[in-house]
């Protein structure tokens, strides 16, 4: 019974974890500009993330150590420092975008400009981290994020062409504006495969005391959680393709997204979208701030746990406190959530090689994984994701310049 509860909570967390400012924004942009054509990029992102989460979860359950621990221990100080800087910078930028996302949702709800909300959101987020346990952070906001199921209802009520949608799972060449098409494809991949997602998942497995008995739970939650989360992001692409694309509406400001579900769901669609954006971005804010603290504390061997009182791990608590407050600055200065989001998603894609490629060695090291090393399916998937990550590393910045505007 306990295992089933954990699986259910894990799937819910997967939905909440996947859907955040990046996946909502990039999916809406993709749908409004290229209809269903970029669905394949989302599917590729979801499958890649599911594999990476399954592997980092398995690594933690078998070795009782987090992925960050093993990065430092097996690859040494120099490589770890490069990975740390890359993931830290990208995670901080995504955190800035998430705080901007919560502020924008509150602006849509109240009419008060998002800049005014940035600091209160950061302080509220810090208070939850300060007082809350890992379970509250992981599952609390994710459960509220179930509101996002309304996206799927909205997409179905918008009457998509199921045949065309099915065909869009196979990649196709863009008919117009190829630089923008590939830029959005990279943004979707960056939003889907954010390093903080699997670093947080791996730290969570250790926080929750996973053992090898949890390998089944790990497989189901990483697979189904991301599948459901990805389905809701797909609902955003579909609805944007059916509502915005025919009216030639391009997403230039986040506030435009408020009308996305009004046509299929009525006025309730507006409020459901605003509430979902607010909750999922707030949940991601907590997860990313914690991820940054996990990354640094685990890398340097400091005491760390979200379940301990802050004075028991002062350096760890200081890192998430400073991170969340610093990340509020751009939104407080009026920098829009959408521009922060697009930039951070592309950089997120560019940072992937530093955390994806080392997994090949770790997941095949018998000293670490015992008899739970990767099988051939996982290895083919991991090598494919590594090749994809190298390609993203090289194309991300040129595409940001040519297709970002």
């Amino acid at each position, binding site marked *: 019974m306990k295992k089933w509860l954990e699986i259910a909570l894990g799937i819910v967390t997967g939905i909440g974890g996947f859907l955040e400012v990046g996946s909502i924004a990039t999916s809406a942009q993709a749908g409004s500009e290229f209809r269903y054509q970029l669905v394949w990029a989302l599917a590729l992102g979801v499958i890649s993330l599911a594999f990476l989460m399954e592997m980092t979860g398995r690594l933690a359950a078998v*070795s*009782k*150590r987090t992925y960050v*621990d093993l990065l*430092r*221990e097996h690859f*040494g*100080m*120099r490589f770890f*420092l490069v990975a740390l800087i890359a993931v830290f910078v990208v995670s901080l930028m995504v955190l800035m975008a998430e705080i901007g996302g919560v502020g924008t949702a509150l602006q849509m709800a109240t009419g008060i400009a998002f800049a005014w909300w940035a600091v209160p959101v950061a302080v509220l987020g810090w208070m939850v981290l*300060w*007082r*809350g*346990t890992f379970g509250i952070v992981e599952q609390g906001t994710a459960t509220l994020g179930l509101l996002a199921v309304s996206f799927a209802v909205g997409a179905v009520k918008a009457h998509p062409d199921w045949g065309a949608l099915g065909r869009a799972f196979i990649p196709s060449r863009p008919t117009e504006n190829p630089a923008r098409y590939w830029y959005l494809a990279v943004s979707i991949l960056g939003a889907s495969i954010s390093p903080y997602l699997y670093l947080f998942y791996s730290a969570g497995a250790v926080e929750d005391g996973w053992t090898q008995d949890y390998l089944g739970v790990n497989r189901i939650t990483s697979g189904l959680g991301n599948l459901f989360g990805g389905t809701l992001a797909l609902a955003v692409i579909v609805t944007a393709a059916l509502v915005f694309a025919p009216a030639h509406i391009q997403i230039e400001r986040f506030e435009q997204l408020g009308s996305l579900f009004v046509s299929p769901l009525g006025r309730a669609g507006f409020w459901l979208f605003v509430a979902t954006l607010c909750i999922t971005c707030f949940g991601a804010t907590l997860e990313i701030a914690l991820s940054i603290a996990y990354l640094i504390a685990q890398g*340097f*061997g*400091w*005491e*760390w746990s*979200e*379940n*301990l*009182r*802050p*004075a*028991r*791990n*002062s*350096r760890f*608590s*200081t890192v998430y406190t400073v991170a969340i407050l610093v990340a509020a600055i751009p939104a407080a200065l009026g920098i829009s959530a959408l521009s922060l989001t697009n930039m951070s998603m592309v950089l997120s894609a560019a940072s992937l090689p530093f955390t994806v490629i080392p997994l090949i060695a770790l997941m095949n090291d018998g*000293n670490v994984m015992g008899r739970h090393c990767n099988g051939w399916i996982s290895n083919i998937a991991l090598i494919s994701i590594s090749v994809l990550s190298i390609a993203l590393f090289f194309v991300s910045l040129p595409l940001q310049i040519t297709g970002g505007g």
Partner: protein
Amino acid sequence: MAALDGVQLVHDVQDACLCDRNGRRIGRVDALALTLTEGKPLRVSTILIGGAVRAERVGTWMVRLRGAIAAMLHHDRDFGVSRVPFSAVRVIGGTIELDVDGATLPSSRLERWLGDHIIGHIPGSQGENK
């Protein structure tokens, strides 16, 4: 400490996470010092923990950067470096357990300072588990 048969220094000890006698994480093995006494085999004598030691592993630019920061703060170059005798090692496993009190080590100075001066003064910070 029992005999270290089969332990590979680079694989099992270098960069491993360290716990003190109370089970608290106190850092990582940032470097190891070896002692050569005439007529005896080379011996691992000391575990080094701290930023100045890590900087040496990163490169001279990091050593210079840290040196400049240390000079600004009027600290010695190896301020905050802990030197723990290797004989304090109790167990080498997923983490290395040391027979020391981590709270008294120089490398835990920042943890203590933050706890005493900032974090510890904020309501809700004290106690064991949340």
